[in-house]
């Protein structure tokens, strides 16, 4: 979380995991098309959405992320055939567990973004950033030590 002193408004920290073949390329296309989305979205490139361990998502929240989004190829289009199907199950289960623990369920999201969907990528990031900004700072799943 960074509070922009100048403007005094809440600027959430958002981590976006993007698979190399579709979503990262989709993000590139958003860039090439000059489609803007908030600067507090930072992308981590992973080979496939199935590389994303629930541990990474918890880690992001621990370190102060306010929202985490995972983007992969559309189901059926995975570069590795089946990776996003596993990712889909894993994330569904993880998100459900976080919700069960009473942690804001809208702080996590999965979106399928193809390499051709630059527009979708930007729209998704804008929407997600908006949602997280409205939710405010992540307090339920952070590590106080990292905020000192």
């Amino acid at each position, binding site marked *: 979380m960074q509070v922009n002193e100048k403007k005094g408004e809440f600027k959430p920290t958002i981590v976006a995991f993007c698979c190399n073949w579709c979503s990262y390329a989709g993000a590139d296309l958003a860039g090439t098309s000059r489609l803007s989305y908030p600067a507090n979205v930072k992308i981590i490139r992973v080979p496939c959405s199935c590389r994303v361990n*629930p*541990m990474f998502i*918890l*880690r992001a*929240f*621990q370190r102060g992320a306010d929202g985490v989004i995972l983007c992969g190829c559309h*189901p*059926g289009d995975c570069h590795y055939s*089946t990776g996003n*199907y*596993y990712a*889909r*199950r*894993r*994330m*569904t*289960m*993880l*998100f*459900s*567990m*976080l*919700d*069960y*623990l*009473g*942690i*804001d*369920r*809208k702080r*996590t*999201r*999965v979106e399928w973004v193809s390499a051709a969907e630059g527009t979708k990528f930007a729209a998704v990031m804008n929407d997600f950033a908006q949602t997280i900004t409205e*939710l405010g700072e992540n307090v*339920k*799943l*952070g*590590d*106080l*030590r990292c905020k000192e």
Partner: protein
Amino acid sequence: MQRVAEMMLERAKALLADGTVNRVVGWEMGEFFYDLTPAVFTADGLDKFVYNGFSGANLSKYMIKECAKDGKALVFLKPCDTYSFNQLINEHRVDREKVYIIGVECRGMIDIRKIRDMGIKGVTAIREEGEELIIDTIYGEKKCARKDALLEKCLCCKGQEFVVYDELLTTGEAFTVGGNNRFAKVAELEAMTPGERFAFWRNELSKCIRCNACRNVCPACSCLQCVFDNPKSGIASKANADDFEENMFHIIRAFHVAGRCTDCGECSRVCPQGIPLHLLNRKFIKDVNEFYGEFQAGADNTTKYPLTNFTKEDVEPSIVTNRGGEN
């Protein structure tokens, strides 16, 4: 139960005598009536062998260690324990050939904590008389209904089916155990507001002392070295330094056993802080059942576990994030 216990002892002696097995894994009598310890017996130690309402411990996980030894071991498994054993077979953690399994009838196991929670102190002996427990204490004799003192896992008994065994010891008498809906409490939590759920779990998980009893007793937690113990994993931690680590440990643990947990209930049974850890595992089981179809880990040796499987039509994670109600 007494009759089954006698039959068990007889079979153990016979199998040791004829050389089928060279040791017996069972429960050993303790200082009091209720403090049984899992133990490995040879012929001359069998006088301490006992099977009664406090033989709750699931002996399946011990078989990992036993399979590394020479010769064949006899193990007594209750119906629900056989699911754990089967799952261990699926994960290649035990060698079926080195274990002789006798499935034993179980009428539900007693939770000494529940008896204490009734305010009964100084328990020195407990007798089962039909559906009633007669409890001797330092402060005189007390009574309670057997069903009020059953372990949580027994209230939601999986039934009397054994999914893996070499032979069975049952009395053939009809009886019923459990019958509670195991997802009732999960559903109750789901129906709460996120704020209430958060408060509930903070209250529970903040009690955690990270003694690792839940993990070490869990038949699904059979890693050689747990990620939380491995300094190279990047997430090692020995104590819960703050709220986050309390959550983290239990979320990751539940996730690692998701789809593999047979719901044997050992985690909650052993927790010294009385945290209802089974409610985390059951949430995953309930989700799996609802999202991907009914699944019981350990029920067979062929079905892929839910998290190593998929269908093209699986639900999207948005089924969670778009749930109604307040966030």
